[in-house]
């Protein structure tokens, strides 16, 4: 699928799409208390979000007018922050995740959500 989205604007669209998809997935999983999976999805959403601005900068370097895409990116960041702020209220700050057949792990969910908000704030 990534190859279908070739080009700078293509990469921009692709990363926005994927970042949105994993954020929605993460939100749903957090609501269903599937913390480990939710945590992983949020990290994936962040990874894709981080690639949005470089794609736009590359487009600008290639001589494309990015004003409209920039507005889209900012609205995207604002909406993500809104969702993440709501999540922060319902998710415990630290979760000890104990799977049935392996050792428990500590998920610093509040820290991760905060980090995600910071990533989004950087583009505003």
């Amino acid at each position: 699928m990534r190859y279908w989205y070739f080009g700078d604007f293509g990469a921009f669209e692709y990363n926005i799409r994927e970042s949105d998809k994993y954020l929605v997935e993460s939100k749903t999983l957090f609501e269903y208390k599937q913390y480990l999976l939710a945590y992983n999805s949020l990290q994936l959403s962040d990874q894709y979000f981080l690639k949005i601005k470089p794609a736009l900068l590359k487009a600008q370097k290639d001589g494309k007018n990015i004003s409209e895409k920039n507005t889209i990116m900012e609205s995207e960041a604002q909406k993500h922050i809104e969702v993440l702020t709501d999540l922060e209220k319902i998710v415990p700050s630290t979760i000890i995740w104990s799977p049935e057949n392996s050792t428990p792990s500590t998920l610093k969910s509040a820290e991760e959500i905060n980090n995600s908000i910071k990533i989004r704030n950087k583009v505003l």
Partner: protein
Amino acid sequence: MKNSVVFLFGLVLFSLLIFSFLFVDRNFLFLNIYSDFIFLHKEITAFIFVILIVSFFAFYFYFIKNQNKISKNQLWKIILISIIISIFSYPAFLSYDIFNYALTAKVAFHYKENPYLLKPIEFIGDSWLPFTRATNKVALYGPLWVLLAGIPYLLSFGNYLMILINLKLLYALFFLGSVFFISRLTPQKREVILFALNPLIIIETFISGHNDITMIFLMLSSLYFFSQKKITIGSLLYVSSIFIKYSSLIALPVYGFIFINSLRKKKIDWPKVFTILFYCMFLVFVLSFIREEIYSWYAIWFLPFGFLSKNKKIVYFCLAFSISLLLGYVPYLLLQSYSKLEIYSKMGIIFLIPLVGYCFMYLKKKL
């Protein structure tokens, strides 16, 4: 045939060429010859258009009637005259599609973006946007067309007028190829004249610059190769036609039938195949109003098969539609808008002329 007839025919085409420049868009800065004549004198514009179309058809019918007087060389001369004159017309005379082909090629080859994903309008500030219409749509045609449109784009070296000429030169190749394959599929000169000198095909291909001839070339060449028992190349050409414009997909059962019969080395009744292909392509033409509306250049899909069918009724039907579809532009020229009134009047003209023609023939037969 007298050279004076050919000269007068060329004169009609030349008048069409001059007439097309009245339609230069205000934003089309590559040609600084904008005039508001067509807006200020809508009735005169429509009148001139009707006169030119009627004259074009008069020569067309004259050529059909006097086919025996036209030598092979003379026929090719007339065809080349038609191409050379009309290729230099202003293309957005009746439709703006050629500008979309150019912009789609620019999205793919200049901006290096996927034209199926990004709309031209997303490239803010592009100098081609002000005069191109439907820029809010992603590429509508098959991937093979996007690739082919890249050739004229790349060979223009950024000169916009060159892109338009190059695109039309590309059509000329496909058009001449289609004429060649029609002449191979039928031994008679009549079908070649019916296709190659048809005013609708010439206007929509070389003046308006629609890409339908590319799909038709691939469909006709495929039939030729099937007739020569070259099944692989025949199949490949047909599949390629689908990747130009998806409408040829409707002919899949017919091509499947040809493919199977060719494999089994069975004899194929070609006139019957052409007749069925005509019906298939006419069906897509009629159904096109479901997607948007019936456009006159869609007739290029069924006209060649209609002419090749050798069925007298179908040929008359094709001729009647060629006239009515071109005259269907009159409401647009009179109103200069795409209103409901324009669409209904256009539909009225398109279907009424063949209907009146049919009634006239029926009554003539009965009385």
